[in-house]
């Protein structure tokens, strides 16, 4: 029986190919989006973890901006003062409070993100940081540490010099961070004082990273922090929520498109099977004459449909595995605030979902053609189509 079905599918190679391709592409889209979403979430959580702080104190303003831009590097045109840092440090539940001055340097068509940090406290936050060479001291105002991506892209090694034309100043690279997998790989790190100086923002800071001694006390700390004027607190879970919300909006559009694609490809299968039944009416009639019962006809049509759909699903999975990179760049382009690296892993749960979906499509797509075939009156079809 199987041979019969396969030979029949191979009879119309181009039509089969197009149908399979249609399903394949739709499943590729669905699979990619599902896997991508999971990868995106995981990467975000990991990246926030790499930040090393429990919360950020930022100037009062748009929470979206505050949350996502701090994570991915950007500027907020409002600042905190050094007194705020002192106040925070005096809260007994606070373990570490580290000031950050974040700035973008636009030169030619390139944007460099410059992180001014207090090296002593910042090192405690980024315990996992490893550096080739060494860190700068807070008072070394001509030394710079760079992320591994910066080093790679600018072809810099320890000892090289970087010239910032805008400030007419040369910095010596004393250290290169080992690959972290986070945003840090793309940043330039300078002593806080130096960054404040070159941007003319002495004693101002963009954000304060805060680590509490005991996570259970986090609510108390937040309360105390919010008493400070012109300051707001963003916890890492809020950041996550904010960004996921942004993705969610982009997603609903993509989902709509994909559901449409799936729907259309399903119509394609129904159409293929229907044509295949109609153009074979005589053959189906003959099969009945030589002994096929209705159940045999059901099996023939259903398994033919199923094979088409499964081939499509397999093609979709192959495309997904092969097309990960492409999808990653594509989606990063339409969703801003993407994590640096999105880990896309093959997920069996998603594969199972897709398999179930395929099965449903196969069943739905074969119902109508099967009914058509079963109701054929063999002798009439055989006679009616005499050449």
């Amino acid at each position: 029986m199987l041979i019969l079905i396969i030979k029949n599918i191979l009879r119309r190679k181009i039509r089969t190919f197009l149908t399979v391709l249609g399903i394949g592409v739709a499943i590729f889209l669905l699979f990619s989006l599902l896997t991508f979403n999971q990868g995106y979430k995981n990467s975000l959580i990991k990246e926030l973890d790499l930040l090393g702080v429990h919360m950020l104190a930022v100037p009062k303003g748009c929470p979206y901006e505050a949350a996502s831009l701090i994570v991915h590097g950007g500027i907020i045109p409002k600042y905190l003062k050094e007194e705020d840092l002192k106040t925070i440090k005096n809260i007994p539940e606070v373990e570490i409070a580290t000031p950050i001055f974040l700035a973008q340097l636009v030169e030619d068509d390139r944007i460099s993100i410059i992180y001014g940090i207090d090296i002593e406290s910042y090192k405690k936050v980024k315990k996992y940081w490893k550096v080739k060479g060494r860190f700068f001291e807070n008072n070394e105002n001509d030394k710079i540490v760079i992320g591994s991506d910066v080093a790679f892209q600018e072809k810099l090694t320890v000892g090289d010099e970087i010239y910032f034309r805008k400030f007419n100043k040369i910095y010596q690279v004393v250290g290169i961070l080992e690959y972290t997998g986070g945003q840090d790989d793309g940043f330039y790190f300078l002593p806080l004082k130096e960054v404040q100086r070159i941007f003319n923002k002495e004693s101002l800071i963009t954000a304060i990273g805060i680590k509490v001694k005991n996570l259970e006390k986090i609510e108390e700390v937040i309360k105390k922090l919010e008493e400070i004027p012109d300051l707001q607190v963003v916890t890492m879970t809020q950041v996550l929520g904010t960004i996921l919300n942004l993705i969610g909006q982009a997603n609903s559009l993509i989902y709509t498109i994909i559901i449409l694609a799936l729907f259309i490809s399903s119509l394609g299968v129904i159409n293929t099977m229907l044509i295949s039944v109609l153009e074979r009416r005589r053959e189906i009639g003959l099969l009945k004459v030589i002994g096929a019962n209705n159940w045999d006809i059901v099996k023939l049509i259903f398994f033919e449909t199923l094979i088409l759909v499964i081939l499509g699903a397999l093609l979709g999975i192959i495309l997904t595995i092969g097309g990960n990179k492409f999808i990653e760049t594509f989606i990063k382009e339409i969703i801003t605030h993407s994590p640096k690296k999105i880990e896309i892993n093959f997920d069996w749960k998603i594969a199972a979902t897709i398999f179930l979906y395929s099965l449903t499509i196969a069943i739905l797509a074969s119902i109508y053609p099967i009914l058509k075939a079963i109701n054929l009156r063999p002798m009439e079809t055989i006679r009616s189509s005499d050449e």
Partner: protein
Amino acid sequence: MNNEIILKTEKLNKIYLRGEERVWALKDIDLTIKKGEFVAILGPSGSGKTTLLNLLSGFDKPTSGKIIFLDKEISLMKEKELQKIRSKYVGFIFQNFLLFPHLTVYENITLPFYFNKRKDKKEKIYEIAEKLSLISRLKHRPSQLSGGEMQKVAIARALIIEPLILFADEPTGNLDSENAFNIFKIFETLSKEGYTVVVVTHNWELISKFNVRKINLKDGKIV
């Protein structure tokens, strides 16, 4: 040979409805066919030959009257039972052969086995192919065969289940006289071997060369 009755009809009538019009295709047909008989149903176009054949083979139901096949009244049977009987005892041959173009001759001949509980017996297949001189053609596709050979493949396909009765509707309608003669020769041999063969044709000239029982239809009546 054997006088066993295989198929019998009593007062068989078939009326088709064509819109408002009633077409009385068969009128009071009484007929008895014995095992091993070679029967030709003859008559002009529209006389009811195909209608009769479809009733005898259970593909259509009579308006009134009885059809008895091996002591069972098939005119009262459900499609499912009929289908079982057909797949066990009945072979069909058509004017336009109805072979599957994408399957080889061998696969076409063995097609009934896919839908039949019977085992695919190699010797039987080769025996039939030998008898119909198709051995050298088994690996070919229908498009590589002559019309006569295609009809022989269709006969082989009908014989593969070792039926009791063979029905053929205008089996030589698409063949030249030489090939048509050969096909009838095969039917004659088969009937001598014990198969019952019922052939519809309007080729009087050909039929006169064989020792056949003739049933003449005219306007739905046996004359």
